[in-house]
């Protein structure tokens, strides 16, 4: 392959203190696609995200972004290179207003503005002066995505965006995520809700107990009942 | 596992220490100074040390005493009595000094004085103002080289009793020194002038920075005169507040050492005028040859005017030198016998070290602050000299206290 992947992780091993969480995880995100990282709770999805983002850097292994090694770089550097991160627990800056949450983000250029974020998430516009800590889960989720967008990312790491949200909001969110894809943003989506994931993704990885167990297109997964049963279903 | 290393380290340190104590050459008169060289008191203690050094150089230049040079070493006690005591013990037991001197801290002075009594080593106190040092707690081995609170109080009371004021307010730093000064003045003032009455009292914590609230309260009570018993940095702080609030123009007040150089010089020409004070020494008064020579030499050596502490340091060195000369031996007991009641010349005239209580009899100057052309700061004016015999507690009083 001569084309360079947008993101490529090669054999990363990550630890929390002494406990070994990720075992030789490798994955790839090409430009323009949504890649699903599926697995049960505690399977290692969030850790993978954090490893890529440099928040919890891998002890061994390498990560490449647009062909350049970004292993061990600090999160703010990665953000400035165009990797946006939306954590699973949302982590809005609770003391600040919605607008301030968007404004303090480092901006590479003006491609994404507050207005454009409000266009994608109209709900945010009406509550722009509310304290972020007082928002509902769905609103906070929109805000964290919007916040990541303000940095004009080319790659978005979305960690369980639908977790704990009401079905109707999940639906809206799914549409919005598809809109982002249209806008040319590649997405690595961590998800345990298979149903929701299958609506969005082009390709999937299944992770369990810190190791990648399956890699394939959406179709391959849909057809592979055994994998679904073993790692995702009851 | 741990113990041997601990012990080993300990011994390395000990030997290190032992070896350093050999640094002093033999055959000198060793004097150890324990004093505060940290924090606000340094403004006084540096002068004591420097003037002492000046005198020691003079003496050594003339060949020392009985063929021996004087050597001295200083220790910073950081205004902490426990540190001061440990350092005094170090000087005594390790450096084997012949004479101890120093400290502005009364608690340290009293603690070291007790040590000096046990160890039978002369101890010259050079700035601690507690009257207990040569009074109640006095003994054969301690010498008071500066005025104490009782003396200051009596001198001030003597001068104030001749003034027309009757309604007094007492204010001061809430610590031993403040209370002792105020009490000293008040006790004798009521004795000398039965008409005086006390309108009220205010005490603030030591190191108080803002006096405005207290001054407001005092102004409201409208006394004739205020006795302000502050010490250290509080002297300057109070004067500045008095000037800023207009207190100094409305009500006259007295502070011990208010007219002293260390208080007035930092304020430049902004210090309040007309503040009454008492002091033992000015570099411009008395205008005698001895004083001029001393000031000249001090300025040459340290590039500043000597303050009151310089007198104490200088005189102490002189007494030590003359004492050994008179005793003609280095025996400490004989030395003490020699300096008891000895009189020497000093920048402020002849001074006697009283035999009964080992207190230096200093003349006290009473005066008020004034702007005088040619000076970059206020100086004392209308100076009255109160001779020591007029105000010092008598030997009987002291002996009664010591019983």
């Amino acid at each position, binding site marked *: 392959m001569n084309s360079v992947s947008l993101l490529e992780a090669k054999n990363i091993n990550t630890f929390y203190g002494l406990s*070994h969480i990720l075992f030789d995880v490798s994955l790839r995100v090409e430009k323009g696609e949504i890649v699903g990282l599926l697995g049960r*709770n505690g399977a290692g999805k969030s850790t993978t995200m954090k490893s890529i983002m440099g928040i919890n850097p891998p002890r061994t292994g390498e990560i490449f972004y647009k062909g350049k090694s970004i292993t061990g770089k600090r999160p703010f550097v990665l953000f400035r290179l165009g990797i946006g991160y939306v954590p699973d627990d949302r982590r809005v800056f609770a003391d600040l207003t919605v607008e301030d949450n968007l404004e303090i983000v480092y901006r590479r250029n003006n491609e994404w503005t507050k207005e454009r974020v409000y266009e994608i998430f109209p709900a945010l516009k009406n509550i722009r002066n509310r304290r972020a800590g007082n928002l509902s889960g769905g609103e906070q989720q929109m805000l964290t995505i919007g916040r990541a967008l303000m940095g004009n990312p080319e790659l978005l790491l979305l960690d369980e965006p639908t*977790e704990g949200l009401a079905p109707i909001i999940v639906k809206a969110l799914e549409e919005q995520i598809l809109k982002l894809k249209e806008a040319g943003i590649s997405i690595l989506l961590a998800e*345990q809700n298979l149903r929701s994931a299958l609506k969005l993704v082009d390709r999937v990885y299944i992770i369990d*107990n810190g190791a990648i167990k399956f890699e394939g297109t959406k179709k391959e997964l849909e057809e592979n009942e055994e994998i679904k049963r073993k790692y995702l279903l*009851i | 596992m741990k113990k041997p290393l601990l012990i080993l380290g300990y011994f390395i340190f000990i030997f290190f220490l032992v070896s350093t104590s050999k640094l002093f050459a033999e055959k000198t008169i060793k004097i150890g100074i324990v004093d505060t060289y940290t924090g606000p008191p340094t403004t006084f203690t540096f002068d004591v040390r420097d003037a002492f050094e000046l005198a020691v150089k003079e003496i050594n230049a003339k060949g020392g005493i009985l063929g021996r040079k004087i050597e001295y070493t200083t220790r910073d006690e950081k205004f902490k009595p426990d540190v001061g005591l440990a350092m005094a013990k170090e000087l005594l037991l390790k450096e084997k000094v012949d004479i101890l001197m120093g400290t502005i801290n009364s608690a340290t002075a009293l603690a070291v004085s007790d040590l000096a009594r046990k160890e039978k080593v002369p101890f010259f106190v050079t700035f601690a103002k507690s009257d207990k040092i040569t009074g109640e707690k006095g003994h054969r081995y301690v010498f008071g080289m500066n005025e104490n609170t009782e003396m200051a109080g009596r001198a001030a009371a003597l001068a104030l009793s001749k003034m027309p004021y009757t309604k007094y307010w007492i204010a001061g730093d809430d610590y031993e020194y403040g209370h002792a000064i105020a009490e000293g003045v008040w006790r004798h003032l009521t004795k000398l002038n039965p008409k005086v009455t006390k309108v009220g009292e205010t005490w603030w914590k030591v190191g108080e920075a803002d006096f405005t609230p207290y001054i407001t309260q005092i102004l409201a009570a409208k006394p004739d005169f205020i006795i302000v018993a502050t010490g250290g940095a509080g002297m300057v702080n109070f004067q500045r507040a008095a000037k800023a609030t207009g207190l100094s123009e409305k009500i006259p007040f007295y502070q011990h050492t208010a007219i002293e150089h260390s208080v007035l010089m930092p304020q430049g020409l902004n210090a309040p005028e007309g503040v009454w004070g008492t002091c033992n020494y000015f570099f411009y008064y008395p205008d005698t040859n001895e004083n001029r020579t001393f000031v000249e030499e001090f300025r040459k050596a340290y590039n500043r005017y000597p303050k009151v502490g310089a007198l104490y340091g200088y005189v102490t060195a002189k007494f030590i030198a003359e004492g050994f000369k008179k005793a003609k031996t280095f025996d400490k007991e004989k030395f003490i016998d020699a300096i008891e009641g000895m009189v020497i010349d000093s920048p402020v005239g002849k001074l006697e070290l009283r035999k009964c209580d080992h207190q230096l009899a200093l003349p006290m100057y009473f005066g008020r602050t004034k702007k005088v052309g040619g000076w970059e700061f206020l100086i004392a004016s209308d100076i009255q000299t109160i001779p020591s015999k007029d105000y010092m507690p008598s030997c009987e009083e002291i002996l009664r206290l010591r019983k």
Partner: protein
Amino acid sequence: MFEAKGLSKSFDGFMAVSRVDLSVEKGEMVAVIGPNGAGKTTFFNLITGILKPDSGRIVYKGEDITGLSPYEIFRKGISRSFQIVNVFQRLTVFENVQLSVLSRENKTWDLITNASKLYTDETEKILEQVGLLEKKNTVSGFLSHGEQKILEIAIALGGKPEFMILDEPTAGMSPEETVRCMELIKRLREEMDLTILFCEHDMDVVFGYANRIMVMVRGETIIQGTCDEVKCNRLVQEAYLGLSDE
């Protein structure tokens, strides 16, 4: 043996646990499952006295233990292990377990005896049971994650419990460790005649070991029953897989 009746707890208006009923019979092994944020840990905190319920009652062996402090509940024979590793990091493995035994025996006020000679047999027996005996002098902070989780259980065992509450005993373990850990729990239950309430994400574990399962979603119990009942329940599938289209 143990019964929770209508337990509710809310934080700032958010119902973390709402009207949960659960009864556990002696010797049972009951699993609580549910997605993240379903209120499992809060429920356990209510039972063990870390949190006080807004309403509802907890009855253990016919005695109302609602609102008692954690240490009082421990004395009644209810022990708990934690989801996040929660051992005494600077103490050795032996001391960790011994502390729990000392506490049960009410010896923590003893200032005189040398602790290293107290209850060594019992402590070592517990360590042997859980397979940590050869590590007994290791400072527990240096154990691997899996070992620390086992130590958690050992600490809980120190209280000679009859009722054990295990909060995700296998979280963060490798598959082999998970199997070993669950086998250990199974063995302990048989050997010591324990009643166990645990929560777990690994469904293999849940269906392999639990007698009965309670499913919680958003603070509410949606079903209680045997493995098969739960497996076939549509609500459960929805909660886990989002298979519903409504």
